[in-house]
C-alpha cells in the first residue's frame, strides 16, 4: 500500500487518505477478533472489505462506529483527526465524519420518507411548536434525488422496493450538508437484493465516490460485485488483514484464494458423483421450491452428514425450515425412508421423523427461565404420564441420563436453562431433539457462539446419532466446521444447488469457492 500519498491524482490509489486505521487489535478474553489491522481508505474511492464469518469485519465496523473499543496501541485517523483506538466513542466517530448503513437498515417502514430523514437529523426547532412539514418536505426532495430516489416524500417507506429502502438509509446517513460526512461504511448493502437491483444500488454507490468524493467502505459477500465496484479490496481472515488488492489484482479467483487461506487460485471443483448407492436414502427431496428455493433435489443416506454451504440469503436456513414445516413449500416431493411425506406443519414434520435445532438459540431454542430438566422433556411429558400424575421420578431419571449422556455441564436438572453456558444450552437443545429418535436431524449453525470444546462435543453428538442409522443436514457459515463435520457438502447459491463435494474433496477452500462463486459464472 502506498501510505502518505497526499497529492490528489487520477488514480484512486494516489488520492489523499481520509480514513487510516493503524495497528488495531481487539481481544475477547484469550481469543483475538482483530490482530494488528492497518488499512487506508482514500477520498473518492470504494474500498471493499471481505472475509468469511468470524474474520473480523463486524468487529472492525463496531470499533469504527465507536460501539466497542479496540485494545490499546492502535489508532484511527479520519481526515486529520486522530484518536487512540481504545478511546474511540460513537460521539467521536460521528463528529469525525464516519457514517454507517448497517445490514439491518434501522429504518422505520411504517413512517414516511420525510419522517425517516427528519428523525435522524432532528426537527429544526425545539419545543412544542408544530413541525413545519412543508419545510422538511422541500428539504428532503433534493436529498432523495441526490441519492437516486424519486418517490414522493409522503410515501410510506415500507411501500418502496428493497434497493430504494437501502438508498433512503444511505441518504439518511449522508443527508447533512455535504462535507460533514466523509466516510460511508456499507455493511452488506446488497445481501437481500436480486442482481439487477443490486447493480442499481452499486451504481449509486460508485457515483457517490466519483462525483461527491466520499470514501466508501463496502462490505460484501458477493465477490463479483466487489470486483466490479471497488478500487481496492482488503481481505480479512481470522482477524488479520491478509492482503489489500488494488487495480488489476482484484479478481474473483484471487479473492477466493485469499479468503480460504490457499495461496493464489484454487482449482475448479469437480462435482462429486453420488452414483450407485444400494441403500434407500433416509431423506430424498425432489424439486423443492418455496421462498428463495428453486428446484432443490438431493438424497441423504443413512449414517451420512450432509453439509449445506451457502451465504446469507442463499436459502440455506429456508431449506431446513421448510423441511421442518415452518415455511411453506410451493412444489416438490419429500420421501423419508422411501415413503412420501407431506409436511404441513411442525407436528407433521416430527411425525415424519424430522428434528430441528434452530439457528436462533435464545429466541427459538430454549426456555430460558425454566429448569434444564423441563427443557429436556419439554414436549414429551405424555411419556411420563400415568394416571393420575406425571411420574416425577421417571422424568428425573431420564433427565439425569440425558445430562450425563450429552455431557451437559450443570449443577443439576433444576438449574435455570438461561444460566447455562451457550455450549451447554446447545447440547441440551440437541439432547431434546435426539431424544425423539429422529430419522433426519436438521441443524442450523449448530456450534454458533459455543467454545471450542463444546463444539467438538456437539460434532461428536451428531456423529453418534447418524452412526445409529439416522441422517443429518448441517447448515453452517463456518466452512472449516462444515469440512470437519460433513461427509458430503452441497453448495447452495441463490436458492439453487450449484455444486457438490464428496468425501476427500471437502476442504474449506473449495467451499469458499463454491459458495462465493456467482451464479453468472456458474452458467458459463
Amino acid at each position, binding site marked *: 500500500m502506498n501510505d502518505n500519498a497526499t497529492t490528489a491524482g487520477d488514480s484512486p490509489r494516489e488520492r489523499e487518505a481520509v480514513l487510516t486505521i493503524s495497528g488495531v487489535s481487539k481481544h475477547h478474553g484469550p481469543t483475538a477478533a482483530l490482530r494488528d489491522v492497518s488499512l487506508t481508505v482514500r477520498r473518492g474511492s470504494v474500498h471493499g472489505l471481505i472475509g468469511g464469518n468470524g474474520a473480523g469485519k463486524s468487529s472492525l465496523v463496531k470499533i469504527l462506529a465507536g460501539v466497542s473499543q479496540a485494545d490499546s496501541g492502535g489508532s484511527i485517523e479520519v481526515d486529520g483527526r486522530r484518536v487512540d483506538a481504545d478511546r474511540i466513542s460513537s460521539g467521536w466517530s460521528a463528529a469525525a465524519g464516519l457514517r454507517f448503513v448497517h445490514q439491518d437498515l434501522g429504518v422505520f417502514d411504517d413512517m414516511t420518507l420525510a419522517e425517516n430523514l427528519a428523525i435522524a437529523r432532528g426537527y429544526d426547532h425545539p419545543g412544542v411548536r408544530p413541525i413545519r412539514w412543508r419545510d422538511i418536505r422541500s428539504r428532503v426532495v433534493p436529498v432523495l434525488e441526490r441519492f437516486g430516489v424519486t418517490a414522493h416524500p409522503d410515501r410510506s417507506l415500507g411501500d418502496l422496493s428493497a434497493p430504494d429502502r437501502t438508498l433512503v438509509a444511505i441518504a439518511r446517513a449522508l443527508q447533512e450538508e455535504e462535507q460533514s460526512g466523509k466516510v460511508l461504511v456499507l455493511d452488506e448493502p446488497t445481501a437481500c437484493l436480486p442482481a439487477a437491483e443490486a447493480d442499481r444500488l452499486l451504481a449509486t454507490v460508485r457515483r457517490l465516490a466519483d462525483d461527491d468524493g466520499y470514501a466508501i467502505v463496502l462490505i460484501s459477500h458477493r465477490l463479483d460485485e466487489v470486483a466490479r465496484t471497488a478500487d481496492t479490496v482488503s481481505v480479512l481472515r481470522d482477524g488479520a488483514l491478509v492482503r489489500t488488492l488494488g487495480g488489476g489484482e482484484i479478481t474473483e479467483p484471487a479473492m477466493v484464494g485469499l479468503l480460504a487461506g490457499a495461496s493464489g487460485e484454487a482449482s475448479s471443483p469437480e462435482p462429486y458423483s453420488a452414483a450407485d448407492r444400494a441403500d434407500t436414502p433416509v431423506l430424498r427431496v425432489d424439486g423443492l421450491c418455496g421462498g428463495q428455493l428453486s428446484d432443490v433435489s438431493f438424497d441423504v443416506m443413512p449414517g451420512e452428514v450432509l453439509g449445506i454451504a451457502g451465504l446469507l440469503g442463499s436459502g440455506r436456513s429456508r431449506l431446513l425450515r421448510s423441511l421442518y414445516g415452518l415455511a411453506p413449500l410451493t412444489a416438490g416431493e419429500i420421501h423419508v425412508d422411501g415413503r412420501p411425506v407431506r409436511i404441513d406443519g411442525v407436528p407433521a414434520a416430527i411425525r415424519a421423523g424430522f428434528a430441528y435445532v434452530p439457528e436462533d438459540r435464545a429466541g427459538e431454542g*430454549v*426456555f430460558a*427461565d425454566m429448569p434444564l430438566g423441563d427443557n429436556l422433556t*419439554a414436549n414429551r411429558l405424555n411419556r411420563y404420564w400415568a394416571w393420575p400424575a406425571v411420574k416425577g421420578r421417571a422424568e428425573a431419571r431420564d433427565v439425569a441420563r440425558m445430562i*450425563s449422556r*450429552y455431557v451437559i455441564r450443570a449443577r443439576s436438572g433444576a438449574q435455570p436453562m438461561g*444460566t447455562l453456558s451457550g455450549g451447554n444450552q446447545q447440547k441440551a437443545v440437541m439432547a*431434546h431433539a435426539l431424544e425423539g429418535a429422529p430419522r433426519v436431524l436438521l441443524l442450523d449453525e449448530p456450534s454458533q457462539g459455543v467454545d471450542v470444546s463444546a463444539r467438538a462435543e456437539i460434532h461428536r*453428538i451428531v456423529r453418534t446419532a447418524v452412526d445409529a442409522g439416522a441422517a443429518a443436514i448441517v447448515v453452517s457459515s463456518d466452512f472449516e466446521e462444515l469440512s470437519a463435520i460433513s461427509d458430503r457438502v452441497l453448495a447452495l447459491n441463490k436458492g439453487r444447488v450449484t455444486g457438490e463435494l464428496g468425501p476427500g474433496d471437502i476442504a474449506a477452500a473449495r467451499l469458499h469457492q463454491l459458495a462465493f462463486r456467482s451464479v453468472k459464472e456458474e452458467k458459463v
Partner: protein
Amino acid sequence: MTTEVTLVDEGRTADVQPPDAGVPSRRRVSLFLERYSLLLLTAAIIVFFCLDPATSSTFPAARNIKNVLGDESVLIVVTLAVLFPLICGEFDFSVGATATASQIAVASASAEHSLGVPLSVVIGVGVGVAVGAVNTILVTRVGISGIIATLGVGTLLAGLVMLYTDGRAIVGGIPTSITDFGANDVLGVPAITICTVGFGMLVLYALTFTPSGRYLYAVGSNRKAARLVGLKVERLIGGSFMLSGTLAGVAGVLLVARNGVGDPQIGGTSLTLEALSAAFLGATAIRPGRFNVVGAVVAVFFIAFSVSGLSLAGAKGWVSDVFNGTALIVAVAVSTYFARRRMQA
C-alpha cells in the same frame, strides 16, 4: 443408543447431583425466604391482629375469620381463572365482566324465569364457557392480541349486562337453596369455601401434575421454542381461555350464592384487577417467578386478612386499595430483583 455411554472421555463426564446439592447454604437460605416470605408475612399479620389490643377481640372471632374465608371465595376462583392465560403469556381482562354476566344470568333464570336451580347454574356457567369460546376464536383464529380481544369482550359484556338489567339489581325471588349454599357452614367451615378449595385443588393438579399444565408453562416461557418442539401452541392458548371463561362463569354462580342478589354493579373491572394483582403477587411466592396456585391463594389471603384487620382497627375504606396496590408493587419489585440475581447465578 440404548446404553448409558457418554459421548466424551471418562473423567470429563458432567456431574449429576440431586437438586440443590451444589447450592451454597447462603443461597439456600435466600431461596427459602424468597419462597415463603409471603406466607410468613401473612401468618405474622394474623398473629399481630390477634394480639393488638385494638383488634384482639374482633379479629380472631370465628365470625370474622369465616367472613374473610367466605368473602374471598369468589376472588379466589377468578384468580384461578386468570392464572391459565397468564401462564401461557396472555391476559384475560374479561373475567370480571364474565362473572358479573354469569351472576345476572343465574339470578334472572332462577328468580325471573323460574327455570329451577340446576338449569340456572348451567346457564350461568354456560355464559362463561361462551365467553371463553369467543376469546379463544378471537385470539387463536382471528389473531387478535389477547389483551385487546378480552378488553373488548369484557367491555361489550358489561354493556350487555346494563342493557339486560337496565342497571337494576335482581333482588327478590332467588331460590333459598342457592343462597343457603352461600351462607351455611359444613363442619364449621363455609360451604362456599370448601367448594373453592375443591376448585383450587383441581387447578393445582391440572397445572402441576398433568402434561398439558406443564406445556402451558412452556408456551409462556418461549412461544417460538414451544412451537418448534411440536407443542400445539394455539390449542393450548385456546384451552387456557376456555378454562378461564368457565371458571369466571363459576365465580358468577358463587356471587349469587354469597350475596343473594344479581347486581350489575358487583364484579366487573375491579374484580378483574384484584384477581390479576393476586396472581402477580402470588408469582413472587412458593415458586418464585412462576404463576402458581398456592402463591395466588396465599396472596389473596394476605391482602384479605390485612385489610380486615386494618378496618377492624378503624381504618377507612380507601385503605383496601392503597394496601393492595402497595403490596403488589413492593412484592413484584423485590421479586424482580431476586429473579435477576437468580439468572446471573
